[in-house]
């Protein structure tokens, strides 16, 4: 187990290196630069700025300089927010993104499992078809459509909740969390329904029933865990989905999370900010998948690392 964990951690290093390399050159290939603006600066000043940020060096040299910085966990100064380092921006935005993402994850996990189980137990009834129909919609409609519709209905027409902005307050969290959670809930519900139906048809469930256990006990004690396994393994990618999903959501709801910084950074060609967020996302996704694998192994006695 420990050996497996160390092995996985070791593999994270080349993965991240590849990510850094691709992102580093891609953002520099994109047209425009961080200090382009409408009115052109005098060449001396432009030269000074570039020198300050080492943009005058050959790209390869910049690349290795950046790698050296990253090794020291220093993502450098933001090109756009001059008084801030990228580390500060991430430290500032991450708690906001994390709370929305974690709440959305929790909500979709609980709701998705509940809905999926209910649909499985009422397989091929009106309830099942209704729930799965709604879930299909939840998966198909992109969140940049859901978000404005929710804002229009709940914030503008009903006036119950703010349409955007941020304070550490539940009222500001409801709509973004719902928007983020919706597709993930729908996906988990469909996944859970399918796996629960499979498990309930398996031989060991028949054995459990033949013991005289009540149906509730059979489901709770015998069916739940194996039915959850596919959902657990989806949690890694789902976490990634929530993180990338929040890029759009934070923009729409004007929430100062890392997603917002990421979008602004990309627009402004804020090389260091974009790189910092990409690496941070990369580490998060690798960590989530790692944790999910550990949980999976812990739940399934047949897996031994």
């Amino acid at each position: 187990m420990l050996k497996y964990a160390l092995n996985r951690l070791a593999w994270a290093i080349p993965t991240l290196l590849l990510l850094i390399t691709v992102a580093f050159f891609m953002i520099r290939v994109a047209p425009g630069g961080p200090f382009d603006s409408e009115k052109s600066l005098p060449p001396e000043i432009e030269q000074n700025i570039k020198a300050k940020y080492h943009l005058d060096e050959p790209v390869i040299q910049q690349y290795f300089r950046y790698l050296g910085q990253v090794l020291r966990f220093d993502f450098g100064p933001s090109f756009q927010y001059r008084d801030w380092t990228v580390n500060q921006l991430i430290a500032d935005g991450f708690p906001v993104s994390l709370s929305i993402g974690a709440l959305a994850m929790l909500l979709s996990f609980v709701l998705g499992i509940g809905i999926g189980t209910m649909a499985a137990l009422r397989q091929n009834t009106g309830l099942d078809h209704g729930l799965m129909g709604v879930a299909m919609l939840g998966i198909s409609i992109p969140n940049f459509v859901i978000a404005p519709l929710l804002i229009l209905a709940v914030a503008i027409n009903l006036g119950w909740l703010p349409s955007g902005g941020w304070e550490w307050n539940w009222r500001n969290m409801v709509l973004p969390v719902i928007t983020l959670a919706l597709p993930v809930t729908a996906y988990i519900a469909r996944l859970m329904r399918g796996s629960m139906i499979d498990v309930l048809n398996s031989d060991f469930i028949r054995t459990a029933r033949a013991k005289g256990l009540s149906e509730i006990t059979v489901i709770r004690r015998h069916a739940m865990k194996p039915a959850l396994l596919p959902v657990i393994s989806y949690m890694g990618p789902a976490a990634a989905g929530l993180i990338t999903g929040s890029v759009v959501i934070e923009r729409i709801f004007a929430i100062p999370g890392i997603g917002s910084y990421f979008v602004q950074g990309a627009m402004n060609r804020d090389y260091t900010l974009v790189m910092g967020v990409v690496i941070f996302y990369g580490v998060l996704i690798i960590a989530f998948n790692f944790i999910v694998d550990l949980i999976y192994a812990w739940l399934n006695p047949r897996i031994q690392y």
Partner: protein
Amino acid sequence: MSKQNILEVEQLEVIFKTRDGIVQAVNSLDFSIAAGETLAIVGESGSGKSQTALAIMQLLAKNGEAKGMVRFGSKNLLEMTATEINEIRGEHIAMIFQDPTSSLNPYMTIEKQMLEVLERHRKMSRKEAKERVLEMLSLVDIPDPERRLRQYPHEYSGGMQQRVLIAMGLLCQPDLLIADEPTTALDVTVQDQIKRLMRELKEKSNTSILLITHDLGVVAGLADKVMVMYAGRMMEYAPVDEIFYRPRHPYTQALLKAVPRLDQPGDYDLHPIPGNPPNLSNLPAGCPFRGRCSQAYDACIQMPEVTEVGEGHQLRCHLGESVE
């Protein structure tokens, strides 16, 4: 037989609603099992023998429906509510299945899976329950049961898994053990162990056994009575010696002949029954076996009635009628 019948099945019908229409898996079946007696139901795949067993326990698939009378004690098992049948399952009637590997929950230790039977049906302390479990595991020859209890099913071999399932079934000393093809999924040497184990258990305890099988070797060693089923119907029903030494139905005769014999020199050929079992959703009129029967004649267009052709020997065949 003078002994008390513990299970009486009358006019049992099992139907399945499928996309291709209604399939009649079991048709007007009558049989009974006395205390301590072993009844074997034999037949090819699809003859309805497993569905008979599942119907008794109300364990049919969702699209299946059982009608008729399955009298156990004073009640009809088929009319019981979920709560009532759960009092019977595991406590008075236990069941073991064909494929031991998939019949044990892979995510639970053997200990948990065995203890929950006693938790459900017996008021005993955890310590007493564990002792009972250990006792049963030793009875079915699981070595080092103390350590084995903490393991998961995948750490057991197929034969050991089946022995665990048998031990699990016998925890509450049921009146009836239904064994649905208990040896089919195992390899031959292990089959032999399980057969021997079941024979021992039968001799030691007074548990009645309903044995579902297509292995006539198992039947010879274990059964007191045999029912031969074909296309959901009883074809022949008789004490075990009658079936082996005086089989009356052409189907029974063909089944016996199909068993490879190594003790008769010069005859190492297989004698399979030609043709395939009929499609249950579209049964031809008359005797279901007539298409494959070597002795079929005009009368077989009509479904033969069940006739008594000897002491406790019932037959569904026109040949039997004509003899009388």
